[in-house]
């Protein structure tokens, strides 16, 4: 269970998060939606301790974590795996070494068991035969998958995704979204996904939180959000309808020709 209580984060004189409060139950997939620059990624980085809040509390599994020391945070990071917006793979390490990195540093399994664990993680993201290649030798979509595998290999209880489909083509986007759902169900994780993709959120989320200008403007299940009267949420929904209409039109055209 994750809970944010009145979280405030400032950078200099700018206040990015202005008192965020919401709760995510165990095993849920929650989407945080919002336009660019509303503090979505900042919120995730506060959760894993890459940034520290100026005010407020963050509770994970009944423990307040925002004031832990860097050393104490290692325990939190063992259970909170983060997948970054960019693949963030280490260029000088092979795919295998990249996936094994966290296992070794967190000392999650013994050295002898690492190859098996790496293989399982790569299988889970449907990547085969690239273990000895370096990140720059594989495609961007594949790098994203390996990055997912690197986090999943730790078997975290909580998975955090920072805009996992940004910069990907529609087919890979769908594949990654399916993977998020698949991995969350397979490993029974609580997942928190930062995204602009309302359509995907409506398809796979249990809960959606909408941020605007550092505030939560709406939250609820996809069904509840569909009836929302908040202007920003309505804009997002209109965008989804427009996308669906466009794809239906293209499908019809394709059938005719």
């Amino acid at each position, binding site marked *: 269970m994750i809970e944010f209580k009145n979280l405030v984060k400032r950078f200099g004189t700018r206040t990015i998060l202005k008192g965020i409060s919401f709760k995510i139950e165990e095993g849920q997939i929650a989407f945080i939606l919002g336009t660019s620059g509303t503090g979505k990624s900042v919120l995730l*980085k506060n959760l*894993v*301790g*890459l940034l520290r809040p100026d005010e407020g509390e963050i509770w994970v599994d009944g423990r307040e974590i925002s004031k832990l020391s*860097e050393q104490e945070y*290692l325990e939190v*990071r*063992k259970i909170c*795996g*983060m997948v*970054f*917006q*960019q693949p*963030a*793979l*280490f*260029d000088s390490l092979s795919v295998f070494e990249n996936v094994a*990195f*966290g296992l070794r*540093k*967190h*000392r999650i399994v013994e050295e002898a068991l690492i190859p098996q664990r790496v293989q399982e993680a790569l299988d889970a993201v449907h990547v085969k035969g690239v273990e000895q290649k370096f990140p720059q030798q594989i495609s961007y979509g594949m790098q994203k998958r390996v990055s997912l595998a*690197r*986090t999943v290999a*730790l078997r975290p209880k909580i998975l955090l995704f920072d805009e996992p489909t940004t910069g990907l083509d529609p087919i890979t986007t769908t594949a990654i979204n399916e993977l998020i759902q698949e991995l969350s169900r397979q490993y029974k994780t609580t997942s928190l996904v930062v995204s602009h993709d309302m359509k995907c959120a409506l398809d796979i989320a249990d809960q959606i939180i909408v941020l605007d200008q550092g505030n939560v403007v709406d939250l609820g299940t996809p069904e509840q959000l569909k009836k929302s009267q908040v202007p920003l949420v309505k804009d997002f929904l209109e965008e989804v309808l427009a996308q669906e209409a466009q794809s239906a039109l293209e499908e019809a055209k394709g059938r005719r020709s």
Partner: protein
Amino acid sequence: MKSVIGAIDEMGRAILFLGDILRTMVYRPNRSHEIFDQIWKVTVQSFATTGMAGFFVGGIMAVQFSLQMNEFGALGYLGGLATSGTIREVGPLLIAFMLAGKVGAYTSAELGTMRVTEQIDAIRCLGADPMQEIVVPRFIAIIVSSFFLLGLGLMMSIGGGMLVGSIVAGVNFEEYMRHVPTIVAFPSIVAGLIKCFVFAVILSTICTFKGYNASGGAKGVGISVVNTAVVTMIGIVMTDWLTSFLQEAVLNWFGVV
């Protein structure tokens, strides 16, 4: 005024960063092979260029000194004076400039890219300390390598000086080397080594600091590389004057000179 305060502020942050590096070295020491790996990389990277530059600097010193010495009919002292000048002053300065241009820029760009592609955040999330993992090995490697490269540069400069001395001033090799042991005394060597150490610490602090704190994508990395080169050069020239002054004072104090 604002830029002066900004510069002082930046200097303060760099010194705190150096403090962080030293603390990490003491409390969380690296495995030796990580450091040796970096030393190897840095040394090999600059081996050829430093050797070549050393050779030509030796030549330049020989030409410059020969013009003056010829007037006094003291060409026999050419080798000793040119070598002493190179060891005390030009050698360390040359090595520092070479390293600033090559290794400093490379390290700053490498760390900056790791920062903007979220690799540094990923290291923290995967249970490791980026200071220990990537900064300290590079910091130590640059300092240790600078001594190897100084040795190489100085040997090559003697070779260059001998060759040019024999061509330009007609001083044969034996004659050139005759006064080297008498003029290049122990204080000259100590002076050169102290300078080399101070320059290397300045360079490695600035390049790791600038790279580690880069922000703002490719442009940010570019800025950090340019800043590394400019600030290092200024820092080296300023401390060169300072170390010369201090060395004289210290050596006089002990009555060595």
